[in-house]
């Protein structure tokens, strides 16, 4: 009996390593200057899926992402680490999606995948930090949700028991399958690439990538069908166009400000012994410290 797990993942700009050229002169984000990475908490989610695969007979791990052609990179990364196959949802119809339009598109794609037992995703993505897509996908699919999972304590064909990490403490909850679980960054880190799988899937590609590379490896892909990464456009999923992309996004960005602080009159010190001692004396005298 099959047991289908979908991992939702996102390729994100690495906002943690923002360099000086990350912002353009007009105050907009220079995406080209930021490396694109696998969203960290989605990797935690992938690890949980792979652990379940080892435990539950017949478990299959599908990776689903929405993004530009380039986002196939994280599908390959997942295949290298043990996912069974990957699906890229891509196309201009999805452009401009906020969290709600994204959730709608993902939920349509998940429906197309057929019978799903478990959906796992990271708690949040580092480019927006909203933590909204997981719960919204669950709602769109009419599934229960468990957020902030730190550990999956038990899973069988009917239910899942999860340890959640909350602001102050922990909670252990049990819910029925199918269910959506968002995984916290405090959960186990993802295993590294497997050398054999990395070799096996090195040439895995989406139709768009094959087209872009321009080389004709038709024989290779015919002989090794697992190298074909599925790519779906809006036409491949059953959807109502008004809920996709910009029109499906209730939130609009009114304006973006580059960071400008109202400067205070700062006193500048060099860090010499004399200056530090004067500062400490001053702070003691005005009762800030002491």
């Amino acid at each position, binding site marked *: 009996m099959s047991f289908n797990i979908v991992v939702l993942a996102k390729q994100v700009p690495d906002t943690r390593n923002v360099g000086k050229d990350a912002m353009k002169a007009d105050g907009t984000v220079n995406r080209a200057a930021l490396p694109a990475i696998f969203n960290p908490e989605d990797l935690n989610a992938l690890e949980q899926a792979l652990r379940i695969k080892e435990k539950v007979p017949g478990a299959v791990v599908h990776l689903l992402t929405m993004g530009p052609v380039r986002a196939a990179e994280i599908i390959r990364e997942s295949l290298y680490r043990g996912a069974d196959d990957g699906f890229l949802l891509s196309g201009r119809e999805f452009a401009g999606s906020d969290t709600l339009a994204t959730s709608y598109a993902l939920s349509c794609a998940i429906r197309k995948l057929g019978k799903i037992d478990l959906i796992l995703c990271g708690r949040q993505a580092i480019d927006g930090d909203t933590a909204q897509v997981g*719960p919204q996908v669950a709602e769109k699919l009419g599934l229960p949700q468990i957020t902030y999972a730190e550990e999956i304590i038990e899973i069988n064909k009917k239910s899942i028991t999860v340890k959640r990490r909350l602001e102050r403490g922990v909670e252990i*909850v049990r819910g029925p399958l199918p269910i959506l679980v968002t995984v916290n960054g405090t959960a186990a880190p993802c295993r590294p690439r497997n050398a054999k799988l990395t070799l096996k899937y090195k040439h895995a590609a989406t139709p768009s990538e094959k087209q872009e590379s321009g080389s004709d490896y038709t024989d290779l892909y015919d002989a090794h069908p697992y190298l074909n990464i599925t790519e779906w456009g809006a036409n491949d999923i059953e959807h109502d166009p008004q809920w996709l992309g910009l029109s499906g996004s209730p939130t609009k960005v009114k304006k*973006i400000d580059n960071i400008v602080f109202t400067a205070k009159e700062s006193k500048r010190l*060099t*860090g010499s012994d004399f200056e530090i001692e004067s500062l*400490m004396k001053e702070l003691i005298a005005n009762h800030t410290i002491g």
Partner: protein
Amino acid sequence: MNNLFVYLEIEDGIVKDVSLELLTKGRSLAKQLNCKLEAVAIGHQLENIPQQVFPYGVDVLHLADDKRFVPYTTQPHASVLIHLFKEEKPQIALLGATSVGRDLGPRVSSALFSGLTADCTSLEIGDYEDKKAGKVYKDLLYQIRPAFGGNIVATIVNPDCRPQMATVREGVMKKEIFDPKYSGEIHRLDVSKYVSDKDFVIEVIERHIEKTKIDIKSAPIIVSGGYGVGSAENFKLLYELAEVLGGEVGASRAAVDAGFAEHERQIGQTGTTVRPKLYIACGISGQIQHIAGMQESAMIIAINSDPNAPINKIADYVITGRVEEVLPKMIKYYKKNTK
């Protein structure tokens, strides 16, 4: 109809600070909009809730009382809000950006197809012009938040969909009694009309609320470190200074990600917001996401080897130098001058 709603987060019969902060903000926004402030309490044995929230200027308090609402699980609380919002059509709904609010908010917004902005650092009322559609919207909620790892500040609006939903972290807004004698009306919900048995599918097996041992929120002095501190080893200097000054150690997200400090110490938009009387920022460049969490400190000292670090702009004292050289001097001269 079309009022401003606040979801009350309740722990052991006590309304959490974050909700009282939202009521304070909600009160002033409601006044600007000339609408009522309404609050929703979902829980069990809610007798003490009215006296806790009316002084914050609540006009209508909705009570949904059922013992199955405690402890919190997602769907029953979501179901009450979804149905209530469909009836009452609020123009604005605010929730705390807590583990409850961030679990509940997206679920409700998805069901109502309304926009939700997470972790706002400021909420204002203003107009919005959609130039393409040639439409002007009056009195929208400006949901202002840092984005993109804190390198930009975005103002988000929800022109067409209601309610306009936002979450705000604890400590970001001020909590202030509006009128100790203020009294509003109580609206008891017939719970059976708002939830169904199918909503109660998640079973909470065990739960322990641990009070955070690290309490940076109420520390009067915070010595905070960023990625520029360089190592967990160098962070020990921060602990030493914090100890002699009677303060706590905080950290930027970059320092937490690098493993220099525990997550509980993170200050900023995705961590804790603090307002100590003294904030000593060591090796912190000053991304907005960090600044958002500490800019209201009464006094800020920035220690940085980069004389042009953004944090210097909001600092009262800028010490240009290496953290590992400056901190020992501060410890030394503090001790020398207090003996």
